[in-house]
């Protein structure tokens, strides 16, 4: 088991390293460079000045040298300065991360709270209208553009009904009610799209379990249908469902970029978008790497959970 964790972690770290090179190169390909921005801020700068500045900042070095320089300072804790926010990158990043987690965790909980019972009921009445409805809903969830759903929700709840704000996050001092009002629409957008898929997982897991003999035993012993469903079957169906849900952990961390952008939710996703669009190189690189690292971490946790629940990996101690 320990070997398994080690192997997977090593793989993740390798991917992260490779991605750091890729991201660094890609960001370098974005329009402009820091000196151009300085020039536009100060028109009196001559090209000789610009060349000198470039030399000072090491921008005339070949790519790999710049990368290595960046890597060394990053590993020593210096993650650079964000041009857009005028703050060290980490100071901008960490709050954004917190906001994303708030959003995603809430959305995840809401989605599960609705999807799991829904899936159970669908499994309890196969081929009923509810069952078909759940199936259709699942398809709809993966087919709908999230930004469209967001716009529709804004249209309904903000423009027409005026109940909820069209965007933004409540400030830290605001009360819980105000915070919830701002959370409502983004959470609704994300959760709606995933409920369908999650309920389908639950449904198939439940169907598997309901076929088993111990269910028949419970029924024969006189347990009510309700008890059979919600106590016996549920417990056993949850295991495969948890493993499948864990696969979504990665998504949890990388956030819903589009949703955050539409609702102006100051999370990681919006940060990445703003950084890329605003040519804030330092912030863009670190934010992207963070997102990558967190996604990889999420997948690693999912892999570990899988490994824990799969006795072959746990017992034999062999990787795969």
């Amino acid at each position, binding site marked *: 088991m320990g070997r398994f964790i080690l192997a997977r972690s090593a*793989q*993740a770290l390798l*991917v992260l390293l*490779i*991605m750091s090179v890729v*991201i660094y190169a*890609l*960001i*370098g*390909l*974005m*329009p*402009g460079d820091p000196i151009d921005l300085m020039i536009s801020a100060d028109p009196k700068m001559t090209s000789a000045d610009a060349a000198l500045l470039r030399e000072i900042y090491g921008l005339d070095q070949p790519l790999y040298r710049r990368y290595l320089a960046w890597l060394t300072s990053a590993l020593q804790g210096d993650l650079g300065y964000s041009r857009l926010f005028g703050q060290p990158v980490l100071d901008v990043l960490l709050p954004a991360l917190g906001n994303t987690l708030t959003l995603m965790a809430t959305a995840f909980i809401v989605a599960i709270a609705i999807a799991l019972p829904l899936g159970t009921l669908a499994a309890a009445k196969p081929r009923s209208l509810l069952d078909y409805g759940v199936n259709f809903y699942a*398809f*709809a969830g*993966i*087919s*709908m*553009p*999230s*930004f*469209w*759903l967001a*716009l*529709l929700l*804004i*249209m309904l709840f903000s*423009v*027409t009904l005026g109940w909820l704000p*069209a965007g933004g996050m409540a400030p830290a001092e605001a009360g819980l009610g105000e915070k919830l009002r701002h959370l409502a629409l983004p959470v609704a957008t994300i959760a709606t799209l995933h409920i369908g898929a999650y309920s389908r997982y639950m449904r198939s897991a439940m169907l598997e379990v309901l076929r088993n003999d111990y269910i028949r035993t419970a029924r024969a012993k006189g347990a009510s249908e309700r008890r059979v469903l919600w106590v016996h079957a549920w417990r056993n169906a949850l295991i495969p469902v948890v493993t499948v849900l864990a696969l979504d952990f*990665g998504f949890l961390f*990388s956030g819903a*970029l*589009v949703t955050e*952008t*539409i609702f102006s939710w100051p999370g990681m*996703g919006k940060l*990445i*978008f703003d950084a*890329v*669009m605003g040519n804030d190189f330092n912030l*863009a690189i670190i*934010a*992207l790497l963070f*997102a*990558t690292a*967190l*996604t*990889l971490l999420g*997948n690693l946790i999912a892999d570990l959970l899988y490994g824990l629940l799969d006795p072959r990996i746990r017992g034999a101690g062999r990787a795969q």
Partner: protein
Amino acid sequence: MNTTSLSPTALALQRFRRHHLAVISALLLLAMVLAVAAAPLIEMLLGHSANQVDLYNRLASPSWQHPLGTDELGRDTLLRLLYGGRVSLLTGLAAAVCAATIGTLVGLSAGYFSGRTDTLLMRFTDSIIALPLLPLLIVLAAIDLTKLGLSAQLAGDESISLYRIVVIVGLTGWTTVARLVRGATLSLREREFVLAARGIGASDWLIMRRHILPNLLSPIIVAVTLSIGSVILLESVLSFLGLGIQPPLASWGNMLTNAQQLIWEAPQLAVYPGLLIFITVICFNFVGDGLQDAFDPKAEN
């Protein structure tokens, strides 16, 4: 002694027809393709072009002249939807084909050569799957092409934005196809007719080209159909964010970009493009699902 059994393709079609949702979806898609193909015709019928700006007639309600009203620049919504549909569907298809090619190459090599090649390729594929998709796509889309050596004029050209989107989305969407193709290749590889080919001294390349690839057609078709949906969604998101298809070239995605700013004035502008994306994608998903069942080898006996 000849048994008049149906060919495997005919059998699959029969099974497909039993999936009512899939059949309806297929018909809907066909209708949509016909409609967007007929865009020039409808343009002629209505008497004005899709890009014709008419600032006196902004945000008009539906009328005979403008069956779905006009947008914020007075352009006919219906025509823009149809032309945008062409772009969205075409890029979706092109990107899906791109993804399918890469995915087939990867999956075929991994499945056929097995061993270290397989492990390497699959670890690579898994790593791609494990990455945060949208942030990376955004970076790819934001690249300044002049830094790669393209002339400034070429870089700004609107059809370049189309090719770029196709390449970017194709570069990321191949993983599903790769996995499906690998699985199919693994099982095909053990079939006796492949052994027989080896027994007459056929080279690996010949076997892959002549014996395995033609038999991969059904899984590939299923994989492509299932991936077109996500490809179209990706393109529309990128276009929505301003990084995909650039205006004035319309796509369903970028038609929604302005819709957000106008949501207080003209909420109806947001409805149609998104609805069309939704319908297209869900139809492709239903058709793909139906095809998957239809080609299922378990049922083929």
